[in-house]
């Protein structure tokens, strides 16, 4: 037993396994895409999984690391999805080469709005911030329904299928990498300090306002990126698909996988994607089971599977050595 444990620790602390896995994964994605190894259903599920990982990790930045409760992530998705789709359908149609700039543009639009929202609401916390994000979600949805130029309530159809396995995989890796570097920087310590005690952090000289606004903007940027990818996967978006249930799905992923943990975000997104495929036959009862899981999680394991713990693969090297020194 002891030898198994020691082996696990050595694997977990081995620095070259994760890069190797990423290279193999990317190679597999490119091969599968060009060689047609996977049937369209498996491919669809894998792309959804990648999008969900981006959503889950980005929401974890606000709900997990910052310790706030945002229910508006679907609103940022909607902004990113619409912005990117407008670019690929209206501004530059028939130009698949511009898909990456379109994704970036989608993320940027979401980030700007997220920045403004954080700027305006930085004084409020807890329940009130949850409310502001809820109001934001409803406003985005009704605003999109009232703009005929983007299709109104009927939505936007005919978006080109541009989200591919390698692009989604790459976007997920970039998301995790950026968030990981942010979280283990000076900024990240400020964010975690706000979660633990905002007043104490403030009196220790932590710039809580900047940290909160930056965390919120980064989170909304990747929410927008995920929305852009989703729009170019399912090729049809309407305001109704970015509602409170979509936000709840992301919340389930975050709190299932574990708050304040990137490994938890990946785990939560993977389990959730597979689970919702299994539950597909249940129709609307699926939307009963998902919130029920959320409630049971809160009652019995409020921090989720990985809650506040991290797989050593995701830790920076100096973090790992400083942890090893501890008795």
């Amino acid at each position, binding site marked *: 037993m002891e030898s198994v444990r020691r082996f696990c620790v050595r694997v977990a602390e081995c620095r070259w396994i994760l890069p190797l896995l990423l290279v193999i994964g990317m190679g597999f994605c490119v091969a599968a895409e060009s060689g047609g190894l996977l049937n369209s259903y498996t491919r669809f599920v894998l792309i959804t999984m990648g999008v969900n990982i981006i959503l889950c990790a980005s929401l974890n930045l606000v709900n997990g690391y910052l*310790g*706030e*409760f945002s*229910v508006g992530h679907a609103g940022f998705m909607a902004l990113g999805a619409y912005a990117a789709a407008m670019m690929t359908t209206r501004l530059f149609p028939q130009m698949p080469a511009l898909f990456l700039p379109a994704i970036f543009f989608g993320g940027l639009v979401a980030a700007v709005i997220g920045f403004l929202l954080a700027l*305006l*609401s930085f*004084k*409020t916390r*807890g*329940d*009130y911030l*949850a*409310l*502001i994000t*809820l*109001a*934001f979600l*409803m*406003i985005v*949805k*009704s*605003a999109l*329904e*009232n703009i005929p130029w983007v299709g109104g*309530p009927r939505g936007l159809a005919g978006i080109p299928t541009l989200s591919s396995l390698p692009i989604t995989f790459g976007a997920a890796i970039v998301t995790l990498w950026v968030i990981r570097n942010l979280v283990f920087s000076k900024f990240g310590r400020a964010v975690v300090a706000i979660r633990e005690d905002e*007043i*104490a952090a403030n009196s220790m000289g932590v710039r809580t306002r900047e940290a909160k606004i930056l965390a919120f903007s980064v989170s909304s940027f990747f929410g927008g990126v995920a929305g852009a990818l989703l729009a170019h996967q399912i090729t049809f978006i309407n305001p109704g698909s970015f509602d*409170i*249930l979509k936000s*709840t799905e992301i*919340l389930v992923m975050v*709190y299932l996988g574990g708050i304040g943990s990137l490994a938890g975000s990946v785990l939560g997104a993977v389990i959730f994607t597979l689970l919702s495929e299994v539950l597909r036959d249940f*129709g*609307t*009862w699926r*939307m*009963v089971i*998902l*919130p*029920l899981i*959320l*409630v049971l999680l*809160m*009652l019995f394991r*409020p921090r989720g599977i990985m809650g506040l713990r991290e797989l050593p693969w995701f830790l920076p090297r100096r973090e790992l050595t400083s942890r090893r020194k501890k008795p």
Partner: protein
Amino acid sequence: MAYFAQQSVNAISLGFLYALIGLGYTMVYGVLTMINFAHGDLFMLGAFVCLLLVTFSPVALPFPVLLVLVMAIIGGLGVLIERLAYRPLRQAPRVSAVITALGCGLVISNVTLSISPYSRAMPEVFDDRYFNVLGVGVSLLQLLIIGVSLALMVGLDVLIYRTRFGMALRAVAFDAKTVPLMGISVNRIISLTFLIGTGLGGAAGMLYGMAFPVISASMGVLVGWKAFIAAVIGGIGNIRGAVLGGFILGTVEIFSVAMLPSTYRDLISYSLLLVILIFKPYGILGRAPNVKV
């Protein structure tokens, strides 16, 4: 002018309904400082329970009996949810309770949606009549809504400011840690608060279903959460603020629909919420809590 007066009557009756639902949010917030996101869905269930009672009752139930039954059933359900889902989390971080409440609300609305996927027509509970007062049409139903809401609100106000239970309730809201030392059972006060608050929500659901007789599972989100905006505008946790907020929201909605395309209604209501939260986060009558270190 007659048009304006007519819209005002509509605004008042809608305002009373919002106020009635908003009271449930604000009572729970006042006592537990927690947003009961499931309240809107219990409001929706109030309309459905009324529909079930009217459809399946062997004898035609008169309106007052129906009202009491709906209030009792929905109030009981509210107490049950508090007991099973919120009470275990009372010591947990506040965010956990908010997430649980949101989850409970979604479970209720989606169970209703799965059982009854289509909108249903509310049967007539009594014969409605129309009066013409100085050129303004007022229905008996609107008078009934105003009368019942007014009676319930006055009753609540008396209960909270004039009785021993009300004193205990205000004491729990003021300082839940010291109150048990005075020999008051906090759990009983909280259960009673949920009974009354969600009971009022159930009554509002029934009245709303009678006034706008097409009911659906999405009513909780569409209407219930609006009432929540009303409670926040007035200052959540403040009983009189909820009533004031209900009227403000009712007026804004009725007149925005009268002047703009009706699809702008939600946009305007939620923008109002956002503006209020940003510039006056504790509402018109609410006070900012002192955070002690």
